[in-house]
């Protein structure tokens, strides 16, 4: 008989070993899934995890790791702050879209002016847009106690509709022969989020993600605000007793994650995506939830998890073109990873004991 026994304190070993074990287990399960789809499991797993890093065309894929990882890390860092405090912003996808829309709109408004301040202004407005969009659930929660999970999520659908309206309406490229979508930022250097060093994948979003990781690391480890975030998540009543103001924390956490998601959206739309189009967003806001948990809500963990998740995206695309693996399989694979992680997490807080069934 198996018995669970709560550990007196969380196991340090398993805190870090659990995500690794989860990745390994997910590879096994994923292999079984790919086999069930009629693909060679070893080849499929190798294609996803090996090819982009060390394969023949790795020189092309490696920079992509940063390009795809940066928005995930940027968003996940913000989400993790909230998750740690028990504030569940799951509408990052919406904030990401709005950040991209507002930032891009400002940039496009200056077209074709060439000035140094246009891109920095776009960055600021993008962050502001995401922040404002996240303030809606934050203020409703603070004022009326409305559930922020549902509100932030509903706002994703609203943001998607807004994106469609903008891409087909006000932001549509006037020289685009009626095709939906805005002007392409690649053709407007003052507003373009170009690679800082050619061929490295390093754009301003990557820089921002790095800064966010460092900022969050210091905040959580050294600053009283980070302590209050952790305290609120672990023991809300003790937090109030300590003097933490829950409304301020809600506004801070949701606001920060909104601004970071907005930034990620802006960097994406003005760089890798290139233009505001109906479907420029590819669900980074949701995948970032997996990244946040996989990284143990820890900034360094999130950076690693973001890269791993980027790897599955890139490897997934290769597997799609080389092996004909459906893209949905990758999406499911990512979901599976979160599942396995949550299950394996048990080991962090509980000890499993094997016990012979006995007659009382």
């Amino acid at each position: 008989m198996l018995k669970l026994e709560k550990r007196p304190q969380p196991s340090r070993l398993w805190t870090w070993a659990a995500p690794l074990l989860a990745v390994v287990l997910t590879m096994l399960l994923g292999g079984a899934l790919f086999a069930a789809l009629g693909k060679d499991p070893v080849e499929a797993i190798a294609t996803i995890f090996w090819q982009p890093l060390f394969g023949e065309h790795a020189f092309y894929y490696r920079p992509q790791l940063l390009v795809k990882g940066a928005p995930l890390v940027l968003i996940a860092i913000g989400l993790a702050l909230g998750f740690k405090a028990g504030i569940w912003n799951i509408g990052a996808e919406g904030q990401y879209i709005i950040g991209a829309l507002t930032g891009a709109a400002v940039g496009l408004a200056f077209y074709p002016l060439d000035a140094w301040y246009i891109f920095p202004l776009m960055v600021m407005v993008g962050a502001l847009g995401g922040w404002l969009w996240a303030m809606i659930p934050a203020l409703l929660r603070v004022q009326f106690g409305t559930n922020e999970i549902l509100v932030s999520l509903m706002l994703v659908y609203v943001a998607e509709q807004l994106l469609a309206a903008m891409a087909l309406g006000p932001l549509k490229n006037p020289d685009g022969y009626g095709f939906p979508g805005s002007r392409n930022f690649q053709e407007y250097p003052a507003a373009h989020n170009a690679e800082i060093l050619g061929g490295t994948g390093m754009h301003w979003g990557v820089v921002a993600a790095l800064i966010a990781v460092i900022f969050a690391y210091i905040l959580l480890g050294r600053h009283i605000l980070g302590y209050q975030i952790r305290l609120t998540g672990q023991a809300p009543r003790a937090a109030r007793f300590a003097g933490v103001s829950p409304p301020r924390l809600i506004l801070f956490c949701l606001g920060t994650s909104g601004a970071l998601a907005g930034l990620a959206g802006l960097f994406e739309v003005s760089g890798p995506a290139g233009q505001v189009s109906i479907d420029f967003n590819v669900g980074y806001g949701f995948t970032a939830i997996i990244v946040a948990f996989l990284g143990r809500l820890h900034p360094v963990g999130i950076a690693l998890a973001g890269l791993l998740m980027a790897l599955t995206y890139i490897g997934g695309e290769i597997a799609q073109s080389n092996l004909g693996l459906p893209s949905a399989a990758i999406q499911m694979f990512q979901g599976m990873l979160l599942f396995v992680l949550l299950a394996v997490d048990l080991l962090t807080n509980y000890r499993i004991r094997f016990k012979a069934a006995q007659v009382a």
Partner: protein
Amino acid sequence: MDLGSINPVLLLASLMVAATPILIAALGELVAERAGVLNLGVEGMMITGAICGFAAAVNTGSPLVGFIAAALGGAGLSLLFAFLTQIALANQVASGLALTLFGLGLSALLGQGYQGIKPPPTGKLDIPLLGDIPGLGPVLFGHDIMVYFGLGLCAAVWGMLKYTRAGLILRAVGENHDAAHALGYKVVRVRILAILFGGACAGLGGAYISLIRVPQWTEGMTAGAGWIALALVVFASWKAGRVLLGAWLFGGVTVLQLNLQAAGSALPVEYLSMSPYLITILVLVIMSADKPRAPASLGRIFHASQ
């Protein structure tokens, strides 16, 4: 815009249809939440139900088999959630989100090759005389069987919670799991059953969308219906009767905006499409202002330590 083209009788009739999937899914979630389990995976279970039901119905030609498969699919997925939260004691919010993300991926995978197919039609309950009453007839008596199933389920859940011993135990478990355990009730077993019921209902709700309401399969076709079902439970203050009211309200908004789109409203389509979500937020705000009382153990992890 031509408002005259909107027929109020048809509007009411299609309201009943639009309300049914979220009604069924919300009732399932209501039961789970009354047992103290917050399952945020409704969206994932609905979409899985949608494709399971669709595939089964297309392959067998029987909508009934489709719905059964959908319920099994939804319940099967919820079993994962039950394992995570009740056995592995994982955080319910995180597990629910995982379920949704996983369900969206799984359904997309299962749905390969089912795009653009029409499912077999589900029978309508055409009651000869009642259905012919002008106005009332089409609104009340001209629907498919699942509409009545939803209404029946609502009554059944209401009665079960209020009058039966099983309902009392379920509420007790959701209210105070330590006390229920001390009295000798099997908290984990009750909750797993409630989760499975919730999963089956979400599956049925999803299949209603893919088999009757749309009817065809597209990826991500539930488009937030699962989340709206979750919101409905809060809106309803965890009461079955009010879930019905909420579903009708939401169904009404959906149908109305679709009608306005068809009637050529001056507003762009996108803004009309937003309205159900905005209304949901508005309703949530109004409801949370007077602080409905959630089951006291909702979302809390139960571990019988001694």
